[in-house]
């Protein structure tokens, strides 16, 4: 993975997208193989060291929604604060930047339970951004969102990757959008896994193999799926 790249992991339900992402983030134990980060096995990172390298946005809801957006984003600074969690000026400016990038200024004093799904998702991404790690992993950041908010979230991810030179990896079912926005994509399939730039993958006809041909087919010209009647 290169710096400043947006990578999408797609595949059918149960292909192992989330499993892969959660293994990369060391949320769950690996099934097999090794994960290397900066040439070092991820198993050899302790929680604190890893927190400075990888931040996460998971599908699970946060346990307490009685905190303000600002407090939520501020929690992203935890790996850098002192033993009792005092925010320095540097921390505060990073939090401000994260809130500004996700356009949450008007919402920052609202409680999380007052937010819509899309707003909460943006707040979670802001928190990951405030953690200021080289890698941000997001598990299905666009589920439960309407088309407009899906596009909005993905475009934000793209701009985060481009402007802050972070590596952003997300899993998604929005294959068509991913093709248009991602720098690289990983297609998880039961047999073969294709990895590359979206246009290369289209040329390799990787998307055709993703779904059974008698239900959906892939149109290489428009980069979209069509339902077989």
């Amino acid at each position: 993975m290169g710096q400043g790249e947006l990578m999408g992991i797609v595949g059918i339900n149960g292909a192992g997208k989330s499993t892969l992402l959660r293994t990369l983030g060391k949320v769950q134990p690996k099934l097999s193989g090794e994960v290397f980060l900066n040439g070092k096995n991820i198993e050899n990172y302790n929680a604190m060291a890893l927190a400075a390298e990888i931040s996460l946005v998971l599908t699970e809801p946060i346990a307490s929604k009685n905190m303000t957006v600002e407090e939520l984003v501020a929690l992203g600074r935890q790996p850098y604060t002192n033993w009792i969690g005092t925010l320095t000026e540097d921390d505060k400016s990073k939090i401000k930047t994260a809130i500004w990038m996700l356009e949450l200024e008007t919402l920052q004093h609202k409680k999380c339970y007052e937010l819509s799904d899309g707003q909460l998702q943006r707040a979670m991404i802001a928190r990951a951004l405030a953690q200021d790690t080289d890698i941000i992993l997001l598990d299905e950041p666009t589920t439960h969102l309407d088309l407009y908010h899906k596009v909005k979230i993905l475009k934000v991810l793209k701009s985060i990757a481009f402007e802050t030179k972070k590596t952003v990896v997300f899993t998604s079912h929005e294959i068509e959008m991913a093709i248009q926005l991602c720098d690289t994509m990983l297609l998880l399939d039961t047999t073969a896994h294709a990895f590359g730039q979206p246009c290369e993958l289209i040329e390799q006809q990787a998307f055709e193999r993703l779904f059974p041909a008698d239900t959906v087919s892939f149109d290489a010209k428009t980069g979209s799926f069509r339902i077989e009647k």
Partner: protein
Amino acid sequence: MGKPKSYRLSFIFLFLVLLLCLAVNISFGSVNIPLADTFTSLFGGAIENTSWDYILWNYRIPKAFTAVLVGSGLALSGLLMQTLFRNPLAGPFVLGISSGASLGAALLIMGSSLFSGLSVFGLINDISLAIAASIGSFLVLLAVMIVASRVKDTMALLIIGLMFGSITAAIVSVLSYFTDAEKLQQYVYWSFGSVGNLSWSQLTLLLTIIVIGTLLSVVSIKSLNALLLGENYAQSLGVNLKKSRYTVIISTGLLAGGITAFAGPIAFIGLAVPHLTRQIFNTTEHRILLPAVLIYGAILMLLCDTVAQLPGSANVLPINAITSILGAPVVIWLLVRKRKMVF
């Protein structure tokens, strides 16, 4: 929601209320001591009636301080458990601490009649009861800790704690079935709880335990805040889950275990105070919540103890009943009025 507000004023107010409650608690009791004499004695002056002086310094003041320690400690351990399990119904005793203490006390009081050969324990007094209760709660806590090292899921731990509680309760039932009425009564009296009868040296010991427990939880503030997001997020923020879980459990064990040993299983405070606190301090930040529950718990316990004394009469009601009778309606009223459980 407006801007984040400063809670300094609320803290000053709460602290003044605490001082007031402390004064009220010391001023009232079975024996009528004039207010003026009470305060003269409190501030080191000499009063004519030396038995009043004795009552104040050897009964009421230690009792008031015990109430403060018990209330603060239970409230804090309730907050710790609610955050650790992210469950608003959790309290200081979910890990089976009070049932362990009950088992210890029950074995000492009622078991000695069953195993008459073992009447070495014949001496049943406050101190041996405290020791038995601490051993009981410590053993149950140890069992829970051993299980905790095997299970990854904190929610499973919650259920396991409850199961340990059931087992010990069952053993206590069996014991009470076979014991004689007098011993049973003695056990029931213990289970009512009491903040009186602590000597200054016992009070010092309790204070030490509570201070250590509180320090441990202060150290955990940062991980407690992260745990509010859920364990996976907390870990991704650099929290060492296992270590912080142990720290919180040990802190709760010290607080709730120590208190139960000296004052019996006092219900309700640990569960309710964190909720009452969140009604005023509407925040999830433990740097604010932690001192707030300490003060709040002390206030509530002092109030309950004042009522339990039935000022002016010679009777004393069981403190355990008062905490629930006074506290539960308050919580219900608050929740109905706000129509929302903030957690």
